[in-house]
């Protein structure tokens, strides 16, 4: 295992190496890396507007990352975050549109609807795994596509009158923040970031501090021993998927009630759910790690938007950099090994 300094040092080194190799790629393909990276930085943290946008981008990444991480920590692989996020999105918007209530009730209700929808969508693979031992990876992959088609149908035929988008949710169910918008020169930053951070804390508390979390982790590591110790393995598998799905659904609610304020027909997946896998793994499946990884993702992805304009570097460079960072984090063993050699050499 790694020491405490290594736990901090390895991701930092990975990021640096990822950026370095990204610079080499830019150089080789004829772009100026300094220009590229400074554009990237300007486009993500350059001024209050971009900071606002970056924070807005980080918000769903945190939830998607927590969703994947939660399942992972409890021995399951949830590739279905994308689908759970979509159903959470539509459910939150639906509740936002269907009721006329004071904000203090309406907004929590709409947010909760997103969580519940995501949880239900994840309940199916959980149940199939628990009762029939059907592999959750297949079911969650398939459920993504079903969600996409179902949500498109709901937008067009149920929630709207054959429109491409639903109406905007009313103020009473909106996460939009005039305050942040004013502060960040009209960015779309909304109150969701507080929910996301709260989500990370809840994640930590559930998993590390409650007896339920103890049980979930135990089942994740060793189903047999957990059963011998009197835990209900099937119930825990389902619970784990449901909680994971709820996080994903909340990510959708952030989009539905915050970023967009409505739902619309998707021609393809949003990609946030798939990015969530990388966020979770990069963050080592712990709460603080997920938040930091989501921040890194948000910064890179947001900065990438402006990079082609200001430096000509294609946005895809960012994907390459992310991939390399993930490789180094994954290969932390070799970094730790080299660090040790280095230390010994220094002495």
């Amino acid at each position, binding site marked *: 295992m790694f020491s405490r300094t290594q736990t901090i040092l390895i991701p930092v080194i990975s990021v640096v190496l990822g950026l370095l190799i990204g610079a080499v790629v830019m150089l080789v393909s004829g772009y100026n890396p300094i220009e590229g990276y400074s554009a990237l930085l300007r486009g993500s943290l350059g001024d209050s507007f971009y900071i606002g946008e970056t924070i807005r981008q980080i918000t769903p990444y945190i939830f998607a990352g927590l969703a994947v991480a939660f399942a992972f920590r409890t021995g399951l692989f949830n590739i279905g975050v994308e689908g759970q996020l979509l159903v959470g999105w539509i459910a939150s918007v639906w509740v936002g549109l269907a009721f006329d209530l004071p904000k203090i009730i309406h907004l929590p209700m709409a947010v909760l609807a997103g969580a519940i929808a995501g949880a239900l969508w994840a309940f199916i693979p959980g149940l199939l795994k628990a009762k029939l031992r059907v592999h959750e990876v297949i079911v969650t992959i398939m459920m993504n596509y079903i969600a996409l088609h179902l949500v498109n149908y709901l937008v067009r035929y149920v929630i709207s009158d054959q429109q491409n988008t639903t109406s905007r949710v009313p103020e009473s169910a909106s996460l939009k923040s005039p305050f942040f918008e004013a502060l960040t020169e009209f960015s779309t930053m909304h109150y969701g970031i507080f929910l996301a951070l709260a989500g990370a804390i809840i994640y930590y508390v559930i998993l590390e501090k409650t007896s339920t979390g*103890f049980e979930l982790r135990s089942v994740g590591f*060793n189903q047999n021993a957990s059963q*011998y*110790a009197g835990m209900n393995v099937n119930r825990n598998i389902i619970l784990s998927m449901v909680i994971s799905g709820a996080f994903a659904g909340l990510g959708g609610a952030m989009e539905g009630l915050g970023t967009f304020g409505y739902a619309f027909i998707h021609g393809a997946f949003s990609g946030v759910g798939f990015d969530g896998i990388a966020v979770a793994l990069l963050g080592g499946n712990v709460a603080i790690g997920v938040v930091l990884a989501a921040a890194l993702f948000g910064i890179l992805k947001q900065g990438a938007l402006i990079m082609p304009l200001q430096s000509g570097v294609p946005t895809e460079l960012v994907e390459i950099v992310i991939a390399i960072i993930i490789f180094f984090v994954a290969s932390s063993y070799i970094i730790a090994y080299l660090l040790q050699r280095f230390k010994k050499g220094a002495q």
Partner: protein
Amino acid sequence: MDYVIEMLNIRKEFPGIVANDNITLQLKKGEIHALLGENGAGKSTLMNVLFGLYQPEKGEIRVKGEKVNITSPNIANDLGIGMVHQHFMLVDTFTVTENIVLGMEPKKGFTIDMKKAERDVKEISDRYGLRVDPKAKIADISVGMQQRAEILKTLYRGAEILIFDEPTAVLTPQEIKELIQIFRTLIAEGKSIILITHKLKEIIEVCDRVTVIRKGVGIDTLDVEGATPNQLASLMVGREVLFRTEKTEAEPKDVVLQISKLNVNDARGVRAVRDLDLTIRAGEILGIAGVDGNGQTELIEAITGLTKISSGSIKLSGKELSSYKTRKITEAGVGHIPQDRHKHGLVLDFPIGDNMVLQTYYQRPYSKLSMLNNKEINKQAKKLINEFDVRTPSEYTQARALSGGNQQKAIIGREIDRDPDLLIAAQPTRGLDVGAIEFIHQRLIDQRDKGKAVLLLSFELDEILNVSDRIAVIYEGNIIAVVNPKETTEQELGLLMAGSKKKEEGDIKHV
């Protein structure tokens, strides 16, 4: 001297520990040479060095007088060295034959010549009396047959020198007898054997010489002839060892467990326990003797709620348990030391502290309003670590990092500390050294003396005879006899376990 193997001044380090320090072991042709030492003394390490899995830091190895450099198991194979590992090296999903020929497959064109492979296996197994079914899947066969497959693997490769790392720890008495017979055949064929075992009686029975190591250091090599178990044990431990466990007469009181007309099916749906009746009282240890596979596992799983019963009743102090889930049964006062500590006893990736509350984490004081109280958990862990002498750097250490004996002590501590009315101990001393065994036996007896009931399941007749107050013999899912350990012998028990006396009810002394 014509030594076939000489390991001279071997040193092997692992990070932070010297597993072998200047050990010398010399094996004569045609002898059975025992390697003796406590858990963690470095026996397996030394043999893994010989087999090419580990590279020694110092020392030299000679095979038939010639210096060799064994850098991989391949080279060991080429030199005629074969090893039957402590933990079997078999691929569960492969057949016996596939496991044996793996890496040296007979070929027909591009394909494996499975026919020839099976013939070869059959031929060797006939020659040495190693009964196996060449076509059976490893997962489907008994531990004994798995071990014979392991031996066949080495013979198939033409091994002249065979290393056996604790081969008897997992075998039933009958299988051990067969194995000893096999040893003799192998020796008669001109092969030489190194045998690791914790059972001193076995050493005295079959071995010619013995090398004793303690904490990684070679202590002595001596002829077995004339040596006594006590002498060997004190060499190994470094102090005097009393053999008999101190035990007073049992004073059985109320009935704790009452099983009647119990029927249980196994995982495949075949009836494994039939119309079984059994009674255990407070203040006694009931030993269950039987050949593996006669329904012992299913019986225990039924009592602990891990398997649904087909019919019958299980009562704990008068309360019917059979419809309860495992947790309720645990709460009702049943403790369980499972047979397979890695698979069922511990969450190896959890710290040892969390493992100490694996059944009680949700109860006060470990949890309040669903919130864990880590301070209390670790306090409890520390207490058990001290009380049960679990050797671990701290309560935060992963359970995986502990040695088998210490893992077992942790489980026993956890179960006994809950002070259950009925403690089920399934093979609690498997693979442990004499010191650890003594410790665990003493704990079981203490529990009895506190007025609790103990159900002991073991394949070691010694253990059953020494520890139990009554012995129930299980055969084909039924208790065919209950005997008093003071009035029976190993021979008689053996016969009962084979089911031979079933019909002659009159001969059996019911207690």
